[in-house]
């Protein structure tokens, strides 16, 4: 409390306020400084992150959103689309801004593509892009080169489809050659003992061989099972084989059923100590297991065959068999008609694998080997493969009685000697016989028709009649003469007897002549008849011959037919059996019928009962409790 005394007036109590000069600026300026530093740092960082800007030609800008669509490599964001424009050809030109770290490995060989949902073969890819939006995938090809100094580089062309990538797991690549893709595609699995051990990673059409070349990838350690004897075959779908032995159904896995598959095996007896095939070895892809197991020989000899007669039933790829074992196949059949001479030749080109005759045979020795076989009598013949379908095949057989022949040099291929088929021969014979018969019969008819026979017979008749008359006259003359002789015996015997002698002599001469004529006629008749019978004999002889050979083949056919008819019989019997069974089942008053009718009746009764119940309940609902009222006896 101040009591008038002004404390302020006493200067001695006042403290001396110190005055100091502020040397440093107010520390509050640190804030803007800090702000500036932060801003600067962010800026620098952004600038550091800034990579390169490239432009890429894309076939289509579908799904590309400028400013938003990202560029990814191995699922890591490495950049963004800046803008989309058109280039000179009105194709989309997309500008990408890429990060610093990816720009280091970028060069003109990098690949870009748009990742969208795709369904291809075994794989449905890019599903995530349905949610996340499409993005641009990239694959830098080299990791050690740097982009040249120009900021915008227009050396990129985007791919239509994502490139086939080799899987990054350990394994080895191989190549398979196949005639057609079938149901195979990228991603189709490769099986070994029904384990999936790899997949197809790429395919392309091989320009030189016209086949499709599949690039497959087989995982570690399964690729070590592959050596040069390994066989690959297609296991897509189901393999059904029905033949005389039975039916066989093969399926690899459900996956292969849907998307196809390839399996491989290495034949066990041959895989000891064979080295593992190196990467990119080429193998053949067989269409199925059986054909992969067949021994395949590379060496082939080609021959041309000429057959007379119809080649109906002979198709390309028909087998060439020796003793029933397939040694080759028919490659081509071509009609060759010479327009000038109208000469028809049908050369049949066959291929023979000589190693099927003998495994150790080398290709160089093979032509000689075949020549020696031909010298032994090997001929090619058209034979009936299947009586029902009329299929033919080429059969080689050693014919001891064949005319000596040899393999002739042809224009393109050597000509192998052929011998006619029995069928051919038969038909030829038959036609020959028919002709002979016709001519003979024609001659006979002509002879008959010409009336010469009639005339001869007439003449003979006449002669005989004349002879008769002559005979009677002669008889008469003889009796007359006897009379006269008797008369003259006494009178003019010597003169008359001499006249008589001459008369009888001339008579006998006339008689002789007559008999001679008759003889001549009979001999000529005989002769012509004999000739006719001779011809007929010959004809019957040849007919017999041909009939026997016919019966021979017919017998063969008959036995075949017998066999099949026996089978048929059996089937018919079985069918009959089942029919009788069916009869018994469906017979009138059979148990089945009876039971069926009973059941129907029951069902009807039940439905009626249910109806009655409902009716009762409707009428007398109290019947549930009190029971139904009965009828009254009248």
């Amino acid at each position, binding site marked *: 409390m101040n009591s008038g005394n002004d404390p302020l007036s006493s200067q001695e109590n006042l403290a001396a306020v110190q005055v100091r000069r502020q040397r440093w600026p107010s520390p509050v300026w640190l804030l803007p400084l800090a702000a500036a530093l932060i801003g600067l740092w962010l800026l620098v960082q952004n600038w550091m992150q800034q990579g390169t800007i490239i432009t890429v030609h894309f076939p289509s800008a579908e799904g590309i959103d400028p400013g938003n669509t990202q560029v990814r490599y191995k699922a890591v964001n490495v950049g963004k689309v800046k803008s989309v424009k058109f280039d000179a050809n009105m194709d989309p030109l997309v500008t990408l801004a890429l990060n610093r770290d990816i720009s280091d490995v970028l060069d003109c060989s990098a690949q870009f593509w748009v990742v969208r949902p795709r369904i291809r073969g075994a794989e449905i890819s890019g599903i995530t892009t349905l949610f996340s939006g499409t993005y641009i995938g990239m694959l830098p090809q080299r990791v050690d080169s740097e982009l040249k100094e120009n900021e915008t580089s227009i050396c990129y062309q985007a791919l239509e489809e994502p490139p086939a990538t080799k899987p990054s797991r350990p394994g080895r690549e191989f190549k398979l050659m196949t005639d057609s893709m079938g149901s195979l595609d990228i991603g189709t699995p490769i099986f070994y003992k029904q384990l999936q051990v790899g997949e197809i990673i790429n395919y392309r059409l091989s320009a030189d061989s016209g086949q499709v070349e599949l690039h497959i990838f087989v995982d570690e350690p399964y690729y070590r099972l592959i050596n040069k004897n390994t066989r690959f075959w297609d296991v897509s779908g189901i393999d059904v084989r029905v033949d005389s032995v039975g039916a066989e159904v093969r399926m690899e896995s459900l996956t292969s059923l849907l998307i196809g598959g390839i399996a491989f095996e290495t034949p066990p007896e041959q895989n000891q100590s064979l080295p593992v095939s190196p990467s990119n070895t080429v193998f053949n892809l067989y269409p199925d297991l059986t054909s992969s197991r067949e021994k395949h020989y590379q060496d082939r000899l080609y021959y041309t065959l000429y057959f007379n007669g119809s080649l109906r039933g002979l198709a390309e790829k028909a087998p060439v068999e020796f003793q029933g074992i397939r040694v080759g196949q028919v490659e081509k059949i071509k009609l060759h008609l010479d327009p000038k001479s109208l000469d028809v030749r049908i050369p049949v080109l066959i291929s023979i694998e000589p190693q099927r005759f003998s495994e150790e045979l080398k290709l160089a020795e093979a032509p000689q080997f075949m020549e020696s076989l031909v010298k032994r009598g090997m001929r090619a013949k058209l034979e009936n493969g299947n009586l029902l379908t009329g299929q033919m095949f080429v059969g080689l057989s050693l014919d001891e009685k064949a005319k000596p022949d040899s393999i002739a040099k042809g224009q393109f291929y050597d000509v192998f000697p052929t011998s006619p088929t029995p069928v051919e021969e038969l038909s030829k014979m038959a036609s020959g016989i028919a002709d002979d018969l016709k001519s003979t019969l024609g001659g006979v008819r002509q002879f008959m028709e010409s009336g010469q026979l009639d005339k001869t017979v007439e003449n003979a008749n006449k002669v005989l009649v004349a002879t008769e008359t002559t005979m009677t006259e002669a008889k008469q003359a003889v009796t007359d003469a006897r009379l006269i002789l008797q008369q003259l015996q006494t009178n003019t015997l010597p003169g008359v007897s001499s006249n008589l002698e001459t008369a009888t002599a001339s008579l006998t001469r006339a008689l002789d002549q007559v008999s001679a004529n008759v003889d001549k006629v009979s001999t000529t008749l005989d002769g012509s008849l004999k000739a006719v019978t001779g011809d007929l004999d010959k004809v019957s002889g040849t007919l017999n011959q041909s009939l026997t050979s016919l019966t021979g083949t017919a017998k063969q056919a008959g036995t075949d037919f017998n066999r099949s008819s026996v089978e048929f019989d059996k089937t018919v019997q079985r069918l009959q059996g089942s029919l009788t069974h069916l009869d018994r089942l469906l017979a009138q008053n059979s148990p089945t019928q*009876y039971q069926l009718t009973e059941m129907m*009746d029951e069902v*009807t009764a039940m439905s009626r009962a249910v109806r009655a119940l409902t009716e009762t309940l409707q009428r007398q609902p109290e019947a*549930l409790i009190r*029971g139904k009222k009965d*009828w009254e006896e*009248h």
Partner: protein
Amino acid sequence: MLLLSACSSVAPQYFTLGTPELSSVANQHQSITSIGVARIRLPSLLDRQGMVLRKDNFSVAVSEQYQWAGVLREEFNESLVSGLQAALPSTRVQVAPWQLEQTPQYYLTVSVLAFDGAPQAQAKLRGSWQLLQGSSGRLVKAGTMSFSRAVAGKEVKDVVQVQNQLIGDLIRHVLAALP
């Protein structure tokens, strides 16, 4: 129905048709080795547990108290078969169904239209029948039946007795038609 009958206060009486009395006529039909009785067809009116008793021409009564012991069709069948067997002791009488191999020489089918009666009134059996050849199913003889007898008694069992006799009439009628 069963429940309702259980709920009812009166205990039901059960009846069965029994074998009709017939004398043997085997010597007349020696050639017949086997005869079969195929499924009898009954009208749905009769296809019920309770007996059907006729009141007059146009009305019937269904009894809860008086019931067939078995199914009427089976009762009828049984009655017919046993009657036939009695009449033809040397013939094998078969009941449907039979296997194809055991088809009898002839077989009989009966289609009943009416089979009812009432105490102190008439009992009737009406319908048609067919005799067929077993092997071929060919019709040998067909005919209608219409039998009626008077029921003297007042009880239901008298009606059943008369019905039994009616079946006997039917059998005699059929036998008369046998070749």
